[in-house]
């Protein structure tokens, strides 16, 4: 035997070496030669752009690794770009952007200590990824902006208070061990020098020599002038409405200015824009502003993909020119670094206030049946519109019309009425839709021309109302000769063509200063589902490292509340002991400010600061959360109070709804409130899913039937119809005994959590008893390793119960593979090699079913299958001797054991089926009578 093992070991080693040689491929001596690190243009100085010429496809490169460092002697793996080794890279250059906080430490793959990159020269500065070592990470903190992502629980309850000497005395931080972080991200800082290199990785995993290390200093740049600016002038109210998208790649614009520039200045504007393009970023040529009218200066407190602003020319005292046609709007903007740019707008469209989009009344509703993280903004009333229609008969006199519902949570449509008209507005017919299944059929009147377009009037009746709603949808349905069908075109509701409008939903939490756009959706929509996530993770900035404790340091305060009047913010420290010094410090600062201020000074900066500090102190002292928390006996109790307050404030939202044509013609509305105050909405979790009432009732009915049938089964024997497959079980095992060959039991693909697996195990238990009784071998290959111990236990118990524990062989109940066809091959192999006489397939199966059963069939084994996999039932019926279909599979355990309590379950199922049949009949009758309440009560999957 030892010789065999030795021989096999040698064969293995040879194979391994041979394969290693096979896959090594060609040498990887050539590295990336053309590599550049550049400052990202038009950004705020936090981005770096890398580009390099990729190697040709003969090198079989699978990815390019990018390395970054703040000193040229140590560069760490930053990220990679995967490429196709066969196709190579089509473009001349590959680009990599170091911005938006790329991961600094990836805990799942990072090495535990510093490791040099493979296949590089001994003096190479390249390292593998930043290791999971707080000391290494700490050396990077001064050179990057670093964010640490922690679970909320970890942040609030897992820190240690760390005191450090700072410029203003002792400073308090929250210290965290490196392994407490979920991930750590870092971004370059403007003005610092960074070093980059790139390494190509071949298909065999070989790293090419590193590209030349390039350095770069990211700096703040002038914004791009690619903003899109649209203006509408409402002439009767003398109002300007503006709408613009910010320039690409920029997120740091601090100031927007809108101008009306005489068209005569256009040549100068263009000339200056050209000069700006080549001038240093700090220089901005804008002499065109001297002859232009400044309409607004706007500093929004948020960043968005669309900004809106409105100017009342009369109220602002702006002298408008007599002809706006001679002027063109211009948007100029300045970032926080003071760099400026401008973009030319489109000519202002002139409208009247009567034409303004009519913003539907909207309401905010807490979403039902959720865990408490959604609010629904529900606009107006729901309606239906036609998407397409096509002829269903060769005579082209019948139409199948598909429609869609624009639903919302506030109203429910009960029924629809479609009135068809020809182009001359003659009514062709009416269809009333009682059950909203998104399709109606319409018979066209005789004599109507083929493929003729028509108009449709769609009315809706809301649930609980007696009449159809006065709001109606009009729609033209036109024939598309290429697609050979009708298409529903513009949806007009209340005379407003909805397709050309968008809704922009604005939201504001109690911690925000102002409303900001959350989502832009099409004008046909009637609802917006706003997800308000729970605070599961936090991502604060890592501000330092404490050598003594080996912990990374974070600011220990969190924002709890904001005063809507003064704007003062309440920051709660993680540790109760730090709040009193904070208040004392505020009082001290206030006293100092008061002392240095003249009695009648109310306009200076110092006076403003005094007011702010006083508001902050008053807000903190008088806040109910503080009043509650100050009695807390521990830091944990202290934080609990403030976390609850923070959750309430950060997840309470107020909304505005804006409707726009995307070209500056917009109107905005707020939800109706009695006293004119903002309406705050807080999502609440539900304890019961209302859509599952029917399921719950059905479960209780089933339970009642079970109890009833169990009580009956104790009094008399219940009849079970014969199931051929199970009746033949004895014969099948007996045949194997006569032939002296084993029995095989193949469970399906279910895991321990699947009912079919549990059912299969129950049958295995019964079969094992038979094989133990007849003293025949039972083999059971498994696909799920969790099921194996259960199967072994059940077979062992069955053998023990039959008094044959010695006959049980644990190695016959074994795991094979969790790969579909590997398992299938193994089962086929066992079928042929062991010449099994009887095979049971019990469980859920996929495509392997036919491969296994056909092999068993050809080997002459008796095969009994049981499955709830509908797609495999035909194959089992064809190739197996007996097949248990669906519910018979679940009944097998009761059938075989004849246990009265198990048999009673079968009876309960039968009674329940009777109830289902009655329900189906009732449903059919009611639906035919257009009563859909019963149908709507049932859940739909």
């Amino acid at each position, binding site marked *: 035997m030892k010789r065999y093992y030795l021989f096999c070991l040698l064969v293995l080693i040879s194979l*391994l070496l041979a394969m290693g040689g096979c896959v090594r491929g060609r040498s990887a001596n050539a590295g990336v030669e053309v590599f550049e690190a550049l400052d990202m243009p038009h950004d705020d100085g936090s981005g770096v752009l890398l580009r390099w010429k990729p190697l040709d496809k003969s090198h079989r490169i699978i990815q390019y690794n990018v390395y970054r460092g703040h000193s040229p002697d140590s560069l760490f793996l930053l990220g990679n770009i995967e490429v196709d080794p066969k196709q190579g890279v089509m473009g001349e250059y590959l680009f990599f952007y170091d911005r938006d906080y790329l991961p600094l430490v990836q805990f799942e793959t990072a090495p535990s200590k510093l490791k040099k990159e493979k296949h590089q020269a001994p003096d190479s500065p390249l390292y593998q990824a930043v290791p999971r070592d707080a000391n290494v990470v700490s050396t990077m903190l001064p050179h990057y902006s670093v964010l640490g992502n922690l679970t909320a629980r970890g942040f609030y309850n897992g820190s240690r208070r760390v005191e450090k000497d700072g410029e203003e005395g002792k400073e308090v931080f929250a210290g965290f061990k490196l392994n407490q972080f979920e991930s750590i991200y870092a971004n370059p800082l403007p003005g610092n020098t960074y070093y980059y290199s790139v390494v190509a990785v071949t298909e065999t995993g070989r790293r090419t020599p590193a590209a030349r290390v390039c350095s770069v200093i990211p700096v703040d740049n002038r914004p791009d002038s690619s903003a899109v600016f649209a203006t509408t002038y409402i002439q009767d109210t003398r109002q300007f409405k503006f709408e613009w998208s910010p320039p690409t790649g920029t997120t740091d614009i601090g100031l927007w200015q809108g101008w009306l520039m005489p068209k005569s200045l256009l040549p100068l504007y263009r000339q200056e824009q050209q000069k700006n393009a080549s001038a240093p970023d700090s220089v901005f040529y804008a002499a065109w502003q001297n002859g232009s009218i400044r309409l607004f200066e706007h500093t929004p407190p948020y960043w968005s993909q669309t900004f809106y602003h409105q100017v009342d020319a009369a109220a602002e005292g702006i002298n408008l020119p007599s002809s706006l046609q001679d002027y063109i709007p211009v948007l100029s903007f300045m970032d926080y670094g003071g760099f400026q740019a401008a973009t030319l707008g489109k000519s202002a469209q002139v409208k009247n206030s009567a034409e303004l989009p009519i913003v539907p009344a909207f309401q905010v509703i807490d979403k039902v049946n959720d865990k408490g993280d959604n609010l629904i903004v529900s606009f107006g009333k729901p309606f239906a519109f036609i998407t397409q229609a096509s002829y269903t008969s060769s005579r082209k006199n019948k139409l199948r019309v598909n429609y869609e519902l624009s639903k919302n949570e506030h109203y429910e449509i009960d029924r629809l009425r479609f009135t068809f008209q020809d182009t001359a507005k003659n009514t062709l017919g009416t269809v009333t839709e009682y059950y909203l299944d998104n399709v109606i059929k319409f018979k066209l009147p005789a004599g109507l021309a083929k493929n003729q377009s028509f108009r449709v009037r769609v009315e809706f009746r809301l649930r609980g109302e007696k009449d159809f709603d006065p709001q109606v949808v009009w729609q033209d349905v036109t024939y598309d000769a290429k697609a050979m069908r009708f298409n529903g075109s513009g949806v007009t509701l209340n005379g407003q063509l909805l397709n050309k409008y968008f809704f922009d939903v604005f939201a504001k939490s109690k911690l925000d200063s102002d409303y900001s756009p959350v989502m832009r959706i099409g004008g046909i929509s009637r609802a917006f589902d706003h997800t308000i996530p729970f605070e599961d993770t936090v991502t604060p900035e890592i501000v330092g490292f404490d050598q003594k404790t080996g912990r990374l340091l974070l600011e220990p305060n969190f924002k709890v509340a904001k005063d809507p009047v003064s704007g003062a913010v309440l920051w709660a420290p993680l540790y109760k002991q730090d709040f009193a010094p904070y208040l004392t410090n505020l009082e001290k600062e206030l006293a100092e400010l008061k002392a240095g201020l003249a009695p009648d000074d109310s306009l200076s900066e110092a006076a403003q600061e005094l007011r702010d500090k006083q508001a902050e102190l008053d807000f903190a002292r008088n806040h109910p959360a503080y009043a509650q928390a100050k009695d807390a006996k521990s830091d944990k109790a202290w934080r609990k109070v403030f976390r609850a307050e923070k959750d309430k404030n950060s997840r309470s939202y107020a909304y505005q709804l804006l409707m726009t044509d995307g070209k500056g013609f917009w109107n905005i509305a707020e939800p109706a409130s009695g006293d004119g105050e903002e309406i705050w909405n807080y999502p609440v979790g539900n304890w019961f899913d209302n859509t599952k009432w029917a399921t719950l009732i059905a479960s209780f009915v089933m339970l009642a039937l079970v109890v009833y049938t169990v009580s009956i089964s104790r009094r008399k024997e219940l009849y079970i119809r014969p199931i051929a497959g199970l009746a033949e079980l004895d014969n099948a095992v007996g045949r194997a005994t006569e032939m002296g060959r084993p029995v095989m039991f193949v469970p399906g693909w279910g895991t321990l959590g699947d*009912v079919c697996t549990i059912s299969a195990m129950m049958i295995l238990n019964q079969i094992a008893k038979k094989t133990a009784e007849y003293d025949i071998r039972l083999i059971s290959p498994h696909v799920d390793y*969790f099921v194996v111990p259960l199967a072994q236990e059940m077979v062992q118990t069955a053998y023990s119960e039959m008094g044959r524990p010695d006959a049980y062989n644990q190695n016959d109940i074994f*795991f094979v593979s969790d790969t579909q*066809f590997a398992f299938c091959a193994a089962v086929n192999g066992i079928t042929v090699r062991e010449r099994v006489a009887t095979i049971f397939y019990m469980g859920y199966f996929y495509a392997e079913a036919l491969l296994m059963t056909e092999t068993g069939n050809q080997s002459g084994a008796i095969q009994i299958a049981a499955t709830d996999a509908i797609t495999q039932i035909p194959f089992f019926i064809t190739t197996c001797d007996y097949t248990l279909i669906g519910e018979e599979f*679940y009944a097998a355990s009761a059938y075989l054991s004849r246990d009265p309590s198990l048999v009673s379950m079968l009876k309960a199922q039968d009674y329940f089926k009777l109830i289902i049949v009655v329900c189906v009949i009732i449903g059919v009758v009611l639906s035919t009578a257009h009563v859909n309440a019963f149908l709507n009560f049932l859940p739909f999957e």
Partner: protein
Amino acid sequence: MKKTIPLMIVILGGIVWVLWVFVPHRLLQDVFYYDFYVPWIRAMSPFGMLLGVISLCMMHTAKIRRKAPKWQYSFFFFAGFIITALAGFIGGTQKGGLYMWLFENMQMPMSATMFALLAFYMASAAYKAFRARSAEATVLLVAAIVVMLAQVPLGVKISKYLPDISQWILDVPNLASKRGILLGVGLGSVATTLKILLGIERSYLGGD
């Protein structure tokens, strides 16, 4: 006690899962599922896998030791197992390594071969199923021919009604029987679950 405690665990666990279906609250959907259940499953999986591997190794070792029929094949199991495991542990599982090479050049082609065999087995099964030995088998044969012909352009050439007939067969008798089976399966699942939850079915605990 040997059976009562496991039974209580099963019943309690079952009730929690029933509640999970009916209660959308965060306590069950997030705290129980993501913070408790998923980490436990992740922690248990490697041990389950280890049990499976040990079971497989024991079976093949016993075969070699007993010199069971075709015991030499068991060496292939050990060869495949050791080479793949070593390739993964030493070289990593990333693309370009030996592990992925083995996967792409050995396992995938072998799986594809097995899958390709399915076509031939289906032909054989179809031959068996479509022999018109009885009235039911004849109906099956006719229905199959109609449905199969409707899938190819030739079907429309034969009769323009064939696709409609095929669709009717699929939508009415076929769907009705499928739904009937599904109804039974659903009820069977519920009944099995109730049997376990109510403690009526205890064979999974080892014996009746």
